[in-house]
């Protein structure tokens, strides 16, 4: 098995992995320092006849040093992490050219809506949700919803283009998680939450629910397909014509 983080498949992955590595190095040094120190002390200062412990109540310089070093390290770590955080989750972080996808979560499936040729997602409303005929509650009166494609448990995204997913939940809190993209965002009923990412490597991945959402939580899984832009366009066109065919028949 893989003893490191999963393969990288989005633009976030390298920077998040770098953050992970940096923290691992910082904590690793501390870890070695403390554990080796403990072992050395345990061996060196074990009880021996005639030995008397050194009577001291502490040392202010030493304590100042080991207060200041962690404090400075942590503040620097916080500032650096915050830059990345704002880039990923900040309010205005979604790039303007992002492709919009709607993700609707319900116990225990994902319904993915693609905007079709007009590039706009139709309006949705929880009151319109019908279990089989309208699982995401698309409003048929909205012109933008006419060409929308709704697919169950399949997330198709183009590589090399930012994608913003509009997350909505019908019942409980779910969590949108694609490990290879390093993206996680809870899906909270009553809130519309945006999450964006840019896939880089075409291939097949998995979308999982990472928030306990009921007894079927473990099987709330969807396939993620990262296509090249051309393949993606072809897929959308194919699905659109398929949907049209179904609509007219």
């Amino acid at each position, binding site marked *: 098995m893989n003893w490191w983080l*999963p393969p990288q498949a989005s633009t976030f992955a390298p920077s998040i992995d770098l953050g992970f590595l940096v923290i691992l190095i910082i904590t690793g040094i501390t870890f070695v320092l403390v554990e080796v120190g403990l072992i050395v002390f345990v061996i060196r200062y074990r009880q021996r006849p005639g030995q008397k412990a050194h*009577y001291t*109540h502490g*040392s202010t310089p030493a304590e100042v040093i*080991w207060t200041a070093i962690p404090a400075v390290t942590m503040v620097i770590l916080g500032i650096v992490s*915050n830059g990345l955080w704002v880039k*990923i989750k900040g309010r205005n972080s979604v790039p303007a050219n992002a492709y919009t996808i709607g993700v609707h979560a319900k116990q225990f499936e994902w319904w993915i809506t693609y905007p079709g040729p007009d590039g706009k997602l139709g309006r949705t409303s929880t009151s319109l949700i019908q279990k089989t005929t309208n699982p995401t509650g698309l409003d048929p009166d909205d012109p933008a919803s006419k060409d929308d494609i709704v697919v169950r448990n399949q997330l198709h995204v183009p590589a090399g283009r930012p994608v913003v997913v509009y997350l909505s939940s019908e019942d409980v809190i779910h969590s949108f998680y694609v490990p290879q993209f390093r993206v996680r965002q809870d899906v909270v009923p009553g809130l519309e939450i945006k999450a964006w990412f840019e896939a880089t490597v075409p291939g097949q991945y998995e979308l999982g629910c990472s928030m306990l959402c009921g007894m079927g939580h473990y099987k709330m899984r969807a396939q993620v397909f990262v296509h090249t832009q051309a393949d993606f366009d072809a897929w959308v066109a194919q699905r659109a014509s398929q949907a049209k065919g179904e609509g007219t028949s």
Partner: protein
Amino acid sequence: MSTVAAAAHTAHAHHDDRSFIRKYIFSTDHKIIGIQFLFLSLFFLLVGGILAMQIRWQLGFPGKPMPGGTLLPETMAPGGVILPEYYIQLVTMHGTFMVFFAIMLLLVGVYANFLIPLKIGAHDMAFPRINMASFWSAVASGIVMLASMYVPDGAARAGWTMYVPLSAREDLSGAALGQQLWSVSIILFGLSSVLGSLNYITTVINNRAPGMTWFRMPLSIWALFITAILGLLAVPVLAGAAIMLLFEQVLGTHFFDPASGGQALLWQHLFWFFGHPEVYILILPAMGMVSDMIANGSRKPIFGYHSMVFAICGIAFLGWIVWGHHMFVSGMNPTLGSSFMVSTLLIAVPSAIKVFNWMGTMWRGNLRFHVPMLNAIGFVAMFTIGGLSGIFMAATPVDMFIHDTYFIVAHIHYVLFGGSLFAIFGAIAYWFPKMFGRMMSERWGKVHFWLTMVFYNCTFFPMHIIGMAGHMRRLYDPTIYDFLKPVQPMNEFISWSAFALFASQAIFFVNFWWSMFKGEKAPLNPWEDNGLEWTLPSPAPHGNWETPPTVYRGPYEFSAPGVSEDYLPQTKKLPTDREPALTPAGGH
């Protein structure tokens, strides 16, 4: 006037003519209540452990019939194969029992009760009857929680954090009565905890023996005192939230119901506003007791006593403003996320002070490796790992990847098992003579420590690695996911280690019960410690002291120059010591 009252009160220290029931069951004696809490919480520790073993079976061997699983009813495990709905009950109840009824009761219920009066030189708690009420409401709460596992549709199923709307709506969770009983039990638990806390705080503030100034208190008492403040102020918030949840389940209110304007995130804010101070409730007393044991085992004064106290206070203060780090990916306002990240990272500072000061205490010491000392060193080593892995979660971008994975599971177990539980094993051995008048077996205590240490690390360290692989929490069957199929051998290894870990606890169990009746009789001061409790016979009589002890110094004066032994009890008067000023007689 005060002398009259004092005479009336000190009288009961001498003769003890209480009936058996008043003495051992509905007792108001803090030591008996502490021992009652010990039995209660060890029972719940066992229950939580049994639940954990079932979880590990399912994760290691998904879909295979569990040995002994056929004893479970069809609704849980038909043919011994655990069902998904039973699995999430296991996960929920394991968390609930361990956090609330095992660790919290073990630390706060047992040791705050047992140690505070003994170590500060008080007769008893300030309010003995309220103390008794606190114990019995904890019992009631525990019974309700246990009962919830036996109702027709099973126990609560929304994880120990009870995130709404899953926990609030029976049509979504599949459990009605079980969920309601969870809320009722937590409300009762909140009552018990508040009653206990107000007792501890009052006692520490007002009932210290003459000479026991604030900065002569042992660090265990400092930690328990600060913990009591955290509990006093945090637990009512949980009780309020649980009441709202109960109303949501029973009366159909809309606090957390988004369809009627309620907010799902409100629960998370309330829960974690309680929940993060709770995390420190679960670790601070352990830190305090470990400080006592390390100073004793090193035969050296604690390194930097004052900064240890301030670190405890600092952790407790920061504990109030970091709860949002449980909610980084919850859809919370991202700006709030940034501020919570900074405050969370700052917690590393007081934690580092504590770890380095413990090491400073051991430096140039004369280390005695008795069982409490071994467990205390184990605590420092393991808490360091748990604390360091917390930094990964505190950094928001990294948290986005590892949140809700086994990395978090590893982190919490390193802190609560590797941290708190090792401290508890040490504390049990350390104060066992004071409780029962007999020593626990040193040899078997060491065997237990080493086996636990090895299997514990084999169980929880690999969880970091499967968490890095992206293994989500609370999955009934991880092999559903293609990317998790390769980690299955690791899961299997974890499960075997967990079984071995559980089995090694049998040594502790036997040692505990055997020593209680057959153990070697305890000498007056078995660890050659300075604390006030060791000036009393073991077990200490009702009312503790006939004449109040007088305290001349801090609790960590080991190996002081000019003293023949390497310890110097707090009550021992040296020619240079002055009598402490008593409470001024003529008005303040």
